[in-house]
């Protein structure tokens, strides 16, 4: 019973993908909230379109007007204007919030308080913090093999060293790779940024709540591409500062 409770508890508090998942993971950052919002908006429009079009198709195919007006119509300026203008209007309705969001996402790293460097390797991630003067925190993050998992751990998703970050803080992430292409991805934080050898890509986010956020390498990078997960642990600012100050780091 205790094991069962621990298992359920662990899977509940962790922000990871789950079997047969179709929707998004819960948002961990404002940008992710916006993305979900935009997605819902578009899906709302889509539902109306699909409904109307299906209704028209069924009506025309099955209705009692088989030999009626619509089947013999060769052209009609009015209907052409209507079904050009309405889709155009709908597309504008989608385009503006979409562009707005695109620009918001682009400016994520602009006002950062913390910079972390992420480097993709075959096949692990390494993180480093250089903000704090002479104290240079640098560590590798390997996946924990299935045999070593503990109860409640997520298979192929746990790592030995998590990336620790504070909540409510603008974080700049600088991503590069040491060997081949990788991609640093955390769905809950709305981050998916390619790691390219010889290039530094900047992105950023603000974590809203304490939690453990899981992601996986998203650019095929070789044999163990599936076995280099990403785990971000967000903690309160004071705990973060405690962690930074630790002697053993």
């Amino acid at each position, binding site marked *: 019973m205790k094991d069962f409770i621990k298992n359920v508890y662990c899977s509940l508090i962790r922000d990871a993908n789950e079997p047969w998942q179709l929707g998004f993971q819960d948002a961990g950052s404002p940008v992710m909230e916006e993305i979900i919002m935009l997605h819902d908006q578009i899906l709302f429009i889509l539902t109306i379109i699909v409904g109307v079009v299906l209704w028209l198709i069924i009506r025309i195919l099955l209705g009692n007007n088989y030999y009626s007006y619509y089947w013999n119509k060769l052209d009609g300026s009015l209907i052409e204007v209507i079904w050009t203008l309405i889709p155009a209007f709908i597309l504008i309705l989608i385009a503006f919030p979409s562009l707005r969001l695109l620009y918001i996402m*682009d400016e994520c*790293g*602009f*006002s*950062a*308080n*913390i*910079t972390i*460097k992420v*480097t993709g390797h075959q096949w692990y991630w390494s993180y*480093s913090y*250089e*903000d*704090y*003067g002479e104290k240079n925190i*640098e560590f590798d993050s390997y996946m924990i093999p299935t045999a070593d998992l503990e109860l409640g751990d997520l298979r192929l998703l746990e790592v030995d060293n998590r990336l620790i970050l504070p909540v409510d*803080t603008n974080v*700049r992430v*600088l991503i*590069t790779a*040491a060997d081949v292409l990788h991609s640093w991805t955390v769905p809950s934080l709305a981050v998916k*940024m390619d790691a390219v050898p*010889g*290039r*530094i*890509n*900047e*992105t950023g986010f603000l974590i809203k709540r304490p939690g453990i956020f899981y992601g996986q390498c998203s650019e095929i990078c070789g044999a163990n591409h599936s076995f280099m997960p990403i785990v971000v642990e967000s903690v309160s*600012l004071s705990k973060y*500062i*405690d962690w*930074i*100050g630790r002697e053993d780091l």
Partner: protein
Amino acid sequence: MSEEKEKIVLKTAPFDNRFPNTNQTKNCWQNYVDYQRCIKAKGEDFEACQYFKRIYRIMCPNHWVEQWDEQVENGTFAGRI
């Protein structure tokens, strides 16, 4: 422990208008080169040079810096210092 805590300031490299894009490679590079030029002109202990060093340490992947330091030492660095 508490003494250590007081030293930590949450401050990082500021946004640089010269590099407004996702690609920050040249941001790291420029600060590295600027530091090398600075210490060449003013010497290693010149206070203002440390600013560039701080920025490039924040912006550059560590293995790049190691490689470039080695190249500078051997005189094979590709940039003009």
